[in-house]
């Protein structure tokens, strides 16, 4: 595995990780060399207007193995996995799956770069599954607000939701919760060695 190429750009000593490019290749089975930078993904991406680094640029940074710039990009957290890019890529490449892999790598290696709100949401969501087996939405919202600090947003909607019967107040745990927790643990063990 080649040393981190961005190290040669900045003159800092190489960090002892495999190159980001090979990490992503191993994790996804896809080769970013397939991308010829046509931009069709960015052209159809619903979040392109809000992204600093556009979809095709994410793949370009990956081709150039610019780890620091890429794992710092907020764009990778804005991907909705709407599958528009995947469906339309002329080379049958899958930017959505690559972005997922980048997210997974960032969580593991640079958790400080994960945007607060989005990170809080994912943590809260997964916590729910681990605890109950299913997402108990009231608990999800409460947990999210605590983690993200967005305490007041949507609070006014609570009574309305309740009145419509849309909020279950008491969580129900599934019987096979032990199995679900075991799945979480086993998956954590099997995550890609770096």
């Amino acid at each position: 595995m080649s040393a981190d190429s961005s190290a040669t750009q900045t003159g800092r000593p190489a960090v002892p990780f495999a190159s980001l490019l090979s990490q992503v290749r191993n994790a996804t089975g896809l080769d970013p060399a397939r991308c010829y930078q046509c931009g069709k993904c960015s052209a159809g991406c619903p979040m392109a207007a809000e992204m600093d680094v556009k979809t095709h640029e994410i793949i370009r940074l990956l081709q150039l193995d610019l780890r620091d710039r890429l794992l710092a990009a907020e764009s990778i957290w804005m991907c909705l996995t709407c599958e528009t890019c995947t469906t339309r890529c002329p080379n049958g490449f899958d930017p959505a799956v690559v972005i997922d892999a980048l997210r997974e790598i960032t969580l593991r290696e640079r958790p400080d770069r994960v945007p607060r709100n989005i990170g809080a949401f994912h943590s809260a969501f997964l916590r729910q599954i681990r605890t109950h087996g299913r997402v108990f939405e009231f608990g999800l919202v409460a947990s999210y607000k605590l983690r993200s600090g967005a305490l007041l947003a949507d609070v006014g909607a609570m009574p309305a939701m309740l009145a419509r019967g849309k909020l279950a107040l008491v969580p129900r745990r599934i019987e096979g919760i032990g199995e679900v927790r075991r799945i979480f643990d086993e998956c954590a063990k099997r995550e890609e060695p770096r």
Partner: protein
Amino acid sequence: MKIGYFPGCSLHATAREFDESLRAVAAVLDIDLEEVQDWACCGASSAHATSHVLSVALPTRTLALAEKQNLDRVLAPCAACYNRLATARYALNHDKKTASQVQSILGGGFNNSVGVVSIAQLLSEATTEIRQKAKVPLSGWKVACYYGCLLVRPPEVCGFDDAEVPSSLESIVSATGATPVKWDMSLECCGGGFSLSRTASVVRLGRLILQSARNAGAQVIVVACPMCHSNLDFRQKAMLERGGFGDAMPILFLSQLVGLSVGLDPIRLGLHRHFVSTQPLLDRIGAAKSQPEHREQA
């Protein structure tokens, strides 16, 4: 006809009306929904955004349970759940590495024999029956069929309908007697799971969808996903405040539209649970309301 049923987390709470209306319609169409016992969450976006293996393992557990129950197909009404289950099924068939990891985590023995079906696929198999049983005239209703991004894409995983110019929802809506409109945002993402964490994006994207539906002459948008419903219904107030598309537009679940056409009671279909009032639609067909409409946000 029996089919496995995976309601998913939101159908028991924030999208209760989807579950209610779907069960009611299934009964009318002689579809026996057998719930997968002890199902767990599919993982939705949070699993695949953080751990690839987990994102396949969780839905695979559900499919394995379904296989044990001798179900050969499972209906996942939520488009996101549907997409996650279908993706897991696809990964088990095509990605050897992930397949062996997941099989070993689950202890093996799963044959990946269970098919995964969306509500569009299920009801498009029943259009003849819907047409026969439709007794409430919905003619004159202009309906925008909103597929959302996950119902038919990517084509290799979903294997149903056309991923760019789909028509399954239109054929179901036509069967009810209503008129589907031609519009150009039917596959554009509503903002999905960003409802809480990036609400502004949802408002931006939803507004474009509502504008397009309005410009095409639609009076109602029909959806097949609780996330899309929530984004377009619950969050519509913020979109209305930004203006640009006139009055509020009711958002119906596909099963609610079909349920209305076959004469089911609107309360039973959960039409009172929406944030954007469905009363204007009900008035058109003279449907009685047996419970007072809840006070809306608007």
